[in-house]
């Protein structure tokens, strides 16, 4: 799949097969497909829980081609990105990757994503939502070129403790020296393979980007190299479990992207998502600066917190109550039973100033046993650290599993 030609019948192909589709199909025992942005994506290949364990204990491979990708180039690429993003992009040096959010004038998060500083002055922005309209609106007054090249780049996330060893076996010499949030290039079958030590699992892991024409050969060589190290294709359900344990938020789940909001009060600022560390007031003007300064002064409306909940029932879609069960403190945005933390965990949006670390709440959980519904008010407390944060995530070179 290459850049879409918007001819009059483009609507007939609204959802495209990924460049890895032929290989995904071979692994997809459940034969279920879902839509992620412009592409068919696999929710689970055979068992979401088992795929989760592949990601945590061996190596899970997830197709990230559908992630929206943009290339930002031109003399003003850096000043452009610094006005667009809340964080100081000048600190992301060539060969490095940074996570960021971008806001509208009201200081509400439009989307979050990763900034890949591919080469001096050349950036790739990956985002959950389509952003080209907003990015182009931001071009006024900047000598910068922006293309959405989602369809021109195939991507695989290779995540888990054996990922480094597998990539090494595949022939990526020196991959073990790549530090977290670093990126590097390899010759691969006559084309360029870009590898970054990034991911959405909070574990050791890499993301691979390649010309879509080489997608299948990349997949084949990866799985051949990983056969003895437990490599498995992983679907979006497993990834969701991994990212909640890692404390990563998801657009449209943990916050409402500001451009999609019909009710602007339902959106969130970076502070309200616990992302204040991404806001750099001293770098000059950026979208949302004025509003965020005011918010800093007046206080935020919400706190996004991590909850450790008693019991083993996932607190899906639950209300969170102030102790005593009378006053609603907020709602759970993401929840799961964490096999790695051995706890019922959740991300929740609570009304500020509620949600300080150590603060205790009650979570209202509805659950079913053989079609019989019950309700429990489970005690929960706010924790400061993410639920899964192993040292191997940062270790360079990683252990050779």
């Amino acid at each position: 799949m290459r850049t879409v030609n918007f001819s009059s019948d483009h609507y007939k192909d609204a959802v495209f097969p990924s460049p890895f589709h032929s290989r995904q199909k071979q692994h997809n025992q459940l034969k279920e497909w879902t839509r992620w942005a412009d592409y068919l994506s696999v929710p689970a290949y055979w068992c979401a829980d088992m795929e989760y364990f592949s990601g945590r204990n061996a190596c899970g491979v997830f197709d990230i081609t559908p992630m929206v990708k943009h290339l930002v180039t031109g003399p003003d690429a850096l000043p452009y990105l610094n006005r667009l993003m809340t964080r100081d992009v000048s600190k992301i040096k060539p060969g490095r990757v940074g996570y960021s959010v971008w806001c509208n004038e009201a200081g509400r998060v439009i989307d979050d994503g990763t900034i890949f500083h591919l080469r001096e002055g050349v950036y790739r922005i990956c985002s959950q939502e389509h952003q080209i309209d907003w990015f182009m609106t931001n071009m006024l007054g900047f000598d910068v070129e922006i293309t959405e090249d989602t369809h021109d780049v195939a991507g695989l996330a290779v995540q888990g403790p054996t990922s480094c060893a597998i990539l090494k076996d595949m022939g990526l010499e020196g991959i073990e020296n790549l530090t977290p949030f670093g990126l590097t290039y390899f010759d691969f079958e006559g084309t360029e393979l870009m590898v970054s030590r990034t991911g959405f699992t909070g574990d050791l892991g890499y993301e691979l980007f390649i010309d879509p024409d080489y997608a299948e050969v990349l997949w084949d060589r990866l799985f051949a190299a990983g056969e003895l190290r437990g490599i498995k294709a992983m679907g979006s359900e497993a990834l969701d479990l991994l990212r909640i344990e890692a404390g990563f938020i998801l657009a449209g789940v943990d916050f409402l992207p500001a451009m999609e909001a019909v009710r602007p009060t339902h959106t969130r600022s970076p502070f309200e998502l616990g992302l204040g560390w991404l806001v750099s007031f001293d770098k000059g003007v950026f979208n949302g600066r004025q509003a965020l300064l005011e918010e800093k002064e007046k206080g935020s409306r919400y706190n996004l917190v991590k909850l450790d909940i008693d019991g083993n029932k996932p607190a899906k879609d639950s209300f969170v109550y102030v102790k005593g069960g009378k006053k609603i403190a907020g709602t759970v945005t993401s929840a799961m039973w964490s096999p790695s933390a051995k706890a019922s965990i959740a991300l929740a949006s609570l009304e500020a100033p509620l949600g300080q670390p150590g603060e205790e709440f009650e979570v209202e959980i509805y659950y079913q046993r053989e079609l019989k519904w019950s309700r429990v008010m489970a005690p929960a407390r706010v924790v400061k650290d993410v639920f899964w944060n192993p040292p191997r995530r940062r270790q360079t070179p990683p252990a050779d599993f």
Partner: protein
Amino acid sequence: MTNTNNIVIIGGGHNGLVCAAYLAKAGKNVTVLEASEEVGGPAATREFAPGYKASCAHLLNLLDDGIREELELSSNGLSIAKENLTTIALAKDGNHITITPDSVEGSGLTAEDKAAYAEYRRFMTKFAGIIGAMHNLVPPRITTDKENLVPMAKLAWKVRMLGRDDMRELLRIGGINIYDVLKENFDNPLLKGALSLDAVLGTFSGPRSNNSVFTALHRMSGNNSGAAGAASIPAGGMGGVMQAIAGAASRAGAEIRISSPVKRILMDGMAVSGVELENGEQISASTVISNADVRTTILDLLGARHVEADFARRVSNIRSKGNAAKLHLALDGLPSFAGLNESQLGERLVIAPSVEYVEHAFNHCKYGEFSAQPVAEITLPSIHDRSLAPDGKHVLSAIVQYAPRELGTGWTEGKAAFSNAIMDVLETYAPDVRERTVATELLTPQDMEKEFGMTGGHWHHAELSLDQFLMLRPVPRSAQYKSPVDGLYLCGAGCHPGGGIMGSAGKNAANVILADQ
């Protein structure tokens, strides 16, 4: 940095000069930087042919009385050559209609039309008074604090105090088009045509465009030492008024530097630090006030990168499509208009024989064409002011519409054709105008944009309309004369209450700046 002035004003248009005068009077160290050799911008009086002078802005109808007094403009040389001009709606057959604030006369007018005119003047004057009362008001912000709620409540109260019937009428017609309102009130086509012209002069709209009642009211909203909307011809052209304001500013201690075009606004971190001139000279200032239009100020002089994207987008979306051309004719003698004597020639003459004619003239410009049969507001200021033309000679000054800024054929080719179309129309009223003409200057909106630096060549810097008025002017988040950048203020016609030679934007901006310092 070569200078340490506290306050720099970019542009010596009337609002810049008024702002400078008030700030200097308050003891501030002010420098006005004017790009051209003369202050006043489109209000400057220029020689367009040897011995013949004219100013693009030719009638004074909105200059604020308070500013006139506070800046002592009379003692600074302001002199009016002719006050309270009568409007004469020209008819080809010489059966003209004369319109004054009090009455309307003409052979074809019925008693009903005359009575309706008195009533029309009554309610339009009353409604215009509401806009007039806003002139010297810093637009309130839409917040819930007392500081902003009180002025908003006062405005609402003024509307309520119109009384039930008049308030209802204002609410009914305030946002609609003048065509419908005139149709409801009058029968005479010539009268309707002339009155409709007041609603569309200088705007991108025809009589049937919504909002044209509002522009008519805005035009009537000045006090100008006379009846609502009364127009006068200043001595020395509009440049005379500019010299008086500049004189007041200089006398108060402001420095006015001509031939000093500003290249860019300088920033130090998040705040302005001064300006750089085209010649490279840098002037440091903690406060920079721009009399330039807001688009030029933010997108060209400052740079969109120094403001948030939403704000830059709003600024780039300001509607400012200039539509009015300016014609200056050097005449070797007075032209003879059918049915007009010499003293009548000195009044305000309008070519707008019917509302439909005006609307047809507008239709062209929607599609990038000039009007095949343009409308015009004509004065012969040299009748009242002999300084404008050599002995025995005269100047005809006319605002001619419609001339879209973007002409499909391009103005290089189109200008001669448009000039011809105007002369053809003029000739039907004044058959000898072509023979009498010794020199012609036609300024299209594109010419005015180039010469005076106004985006779109728009008189008001930004279209005057309800969606770009009061707290929406020039754009939300800068309607209090402050830009989002620390130390950068706006004082031009693009700000509330808009253009026309009024000066209120400059005065209001000065008040905001003084309150901030």
